[in-house]
Each structure stands twice: as C-alpha cells, then as structure tokens.
C-alpha cells in the first residue's frame, strides 16, 4: 500500500487542528504573500522539489462581515474599532485551502463558518484589550479569551481555527483514496500520532 507525506503551510492554530485530529503532517514555515488565486501557484511552487508521494496543502483564512475584510490590527485603537464593528453582529471566517501534488492536480476548496458575536459593552472591550490578546484577525482570539464573546458558531469549528478538517478529509479520500481506516501514514491508522 502506498504511503504519503502531508506538507502543510498554514497558521499556527491550523497546525493545532491537525494535531488535534491526529493527522501526521509536516509544517512548512513559508506562507503565501496573498490569498485568492495566488494560493494555487504558491502550492505548486511549494511542491515542485518534493518527493512524488508528498501531498501539499496551503490554507489561508480571512474574516469578513460582507462589508469589510478584517486583518490583524496594528494598534490597540485599531483593535478597539474592529471589536466595536463586529459587536452584536455576525461575521464569517473563510478558509481557502489548496490541495494537490503526488500525481494529482491542485484544486482550491473554500469553507466558511459564521460567528455570532455578543453585543459588547465598553468595559468588556477595554477589559479584553488590557490582556493584549488582540493581534489576531478582527482583533480576537477564538481559542483564547475571545471565546467569551462568541455566542454561536454555524459551520465547522476547524474553519474558525484556519483549517477545514472535514473538507480536507473528503479531499484526501476523493483524490488519493486516503481514509482514517487505511491511514496511509496520514490518518490514525499508520499515523505516528496515534
């Protein structure tokens, strides 16, 4: 049975998702400069010199409420403005994931999850900002104290962290015949993280 290696470029929280899910993977420290169409060419470039059994995954996330895209705030003032903006509303975490290599073409898959945010008071915003935990897109950490503000999630929680695990699972099965049952050095069976 053919075994594979999984090479992943993504954010730190996305790596946490893969570890949590019991996936055997290797981190790529380089990240694409831009999201969107550039993702595919970045993934192809990343895979160029790799062995023929290496599957390449590149995942990038953005947060949007349909009116604006929220990046990482540079200052506390900017963070406060973002938190005021998303307070009491619903915004989307959108991940574009490119997967391919190991004899298969590259394709981009998009996954989205929505977060309903608590209506925040001034003291909540100032109190949160005092912890200096705002260097995240839209100025909150979904895996930190920012979780106190997330009233509801609609979608796959792994998208919020930066890697849609269910979409990855489906792509691995469809493109490479890799399932948790046969492992192929990626999933639970045959994974050294078992």
């Amino acid at each position, binding site marked *: 049975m053919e075994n594979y290696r999984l090479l992943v470029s993504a*954010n*730190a*929280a996305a790596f946490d*998702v893969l570890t*949590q*899910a*019991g996936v055997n993977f290797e981190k790529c420290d380089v*990240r694409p400069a831009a999201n969107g169409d550039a993702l595919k060419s970045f993934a192809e470039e990343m895979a160029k010199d790799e062995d023929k059994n290496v599957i390449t995954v590149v995942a*990038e*996330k953005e947060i949007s409420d349909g009116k604006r895209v929220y990046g*990482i705030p540079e200052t506390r003032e900017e963070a406060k403005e973002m938190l005021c903006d998303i307070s009491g509303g619903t915004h989307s975490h959108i991940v574009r994931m490119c997967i391919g290599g190991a004899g298969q073409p590259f394709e981009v898959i998009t996954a989205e*999850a929505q977060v309903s945010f*608590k209506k925040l008071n001034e*003291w*909540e915003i*100032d*109190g*949160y900002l*005092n*912890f*200096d*935990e*705002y*260097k*995240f*897109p839209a100025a909150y*950490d979904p*895996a*930190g*104290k920012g*979780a*106190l*503000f*997330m*009233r*509801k*999630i*609609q*979608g*796959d*929680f*792994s998208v*919020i962290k*930066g890697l849609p*695990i*269910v979409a990855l*699972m489906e792509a691995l099965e469809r493109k490479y015949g890799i*399932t*948790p*049952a*046969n*492992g192929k050095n990626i*999933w*639970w*069976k045959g994974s050294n993280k*078992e």
Partner: protein
Amino acid sequence: MELKIVLASNSPRRREIMESLGFDVEVIAGNVDENIEEEGISPELLVQELALLKGRAIAQKLHNDDSRNYLVVAADTVVVYNNEIFGKPQSRADAERMLKTLSGKKHSVITGMAVWALDSGKGCSVYEKTDVYFKKLSDETIQAYLDTEEYKDKAGGYGIQGKGICLVEKIDGDYYNVVGLPVSKFHEVLYEEHRTNVFHGKNGGLWKKNDERKNTPRNKDSV
C-alpha cells in the same frame, strides 16, 4: 477579598477549557449521587439539576472557609438524539451503537451549568444547547475511531476536542458547550447574576498571573 474559581468537576476537559482561556482554576470534585428519579424530566432540566447537585456539595464544603471569596462552577453535559439521552458508553459496542445512530444525523449537546458566589450565597443554574451535525460515517471510519479509544468517558461516544472533530460536519451553537463548558454563557452569568466583571484584575483575580497567552510570538503569526 480575592475571588477564586473552584471547578466542581472531575472532567479534565472542563479544566482544560478554563485554563486555555487563562482562568486560574482550582478543582475540587466531590462524589454525588447522579441518579435523579424524576419521571419525564427534560434533558435541559436534568443537566441543571445535576450541575446544582455537584456544585452544592462543593459550596457546602467551602462554606466555612472565609480566607477567599469562592466562585463555585459545576456542569453536566448530555448528548440527546430523538429524545434519547446518550451518556458515556459502557463498552466499545455501546460506543459503536451510539456512533452508528448519530451518523449522518443532527443531535443536541446540552450542558447545565451552576454558579455559586459564596460571599453572597447566591447560586443559579442555566443551560446551553448546541446542535451537532455528524458526517455520514462508514463502518470502517467508525471502527478506526473506536480503535483510537477516544470514545471512553465521552458522552455520545466521541470527543469534538480530539479526533472526533473529524466526525462533525458542522455545529450550530457554542463550540465550548460541546466540549463541556459554555464559556460565553459563563461570562454572561458572571455579570448578569453575580455582577462580576470577568476582565477585572489582569494579573490575578480570576486569571492566572502573567498569563502567557497574550500576544506571544506563537499568537502573533496567527492569521
């Protein structure tokens, strides 16, 4: 007087949630009889009563300790599908039955939470419900999951905070409620019922001193 959170729970997952957020938590779990003999009791009421039972036992234990102002938090979580309550599986075969039942379907995870402030003697209970939609699981995937033994000690036979995340297509509600403690609701209860500002006291108070989570290099590159 310094406020101290006491988690009246044996669940390592609840402790992990609180600590991952940076809360300074002391765990004091008691042994309570969890058999509530009320015919036809709804899951929502059941989990609140169980949380009250667990919390009350610890609150009474700490009642005479006036060295600190304790906030006792207790919780109980159940998985409900088609009016049937799924507790922790008794065996691998029981877990298999649960996962096969939940495959491709929607179920609810309901957590009851009780919070006591010992200084005021005031306690309250609330519940949170999250709908969880399972992927359609093949027999092979179910067996592979059972082989990981992660089903043990988990209501419904899976843990969303572990490899079980691969079984879940989507959720509708609070993610942390599915893990075992609805933190958003906790924040709400602290303020609305106990007039406690959760963010008061950056270093100390409810939080671990010198919380390492804040803008560490690991977090700075998170996008």
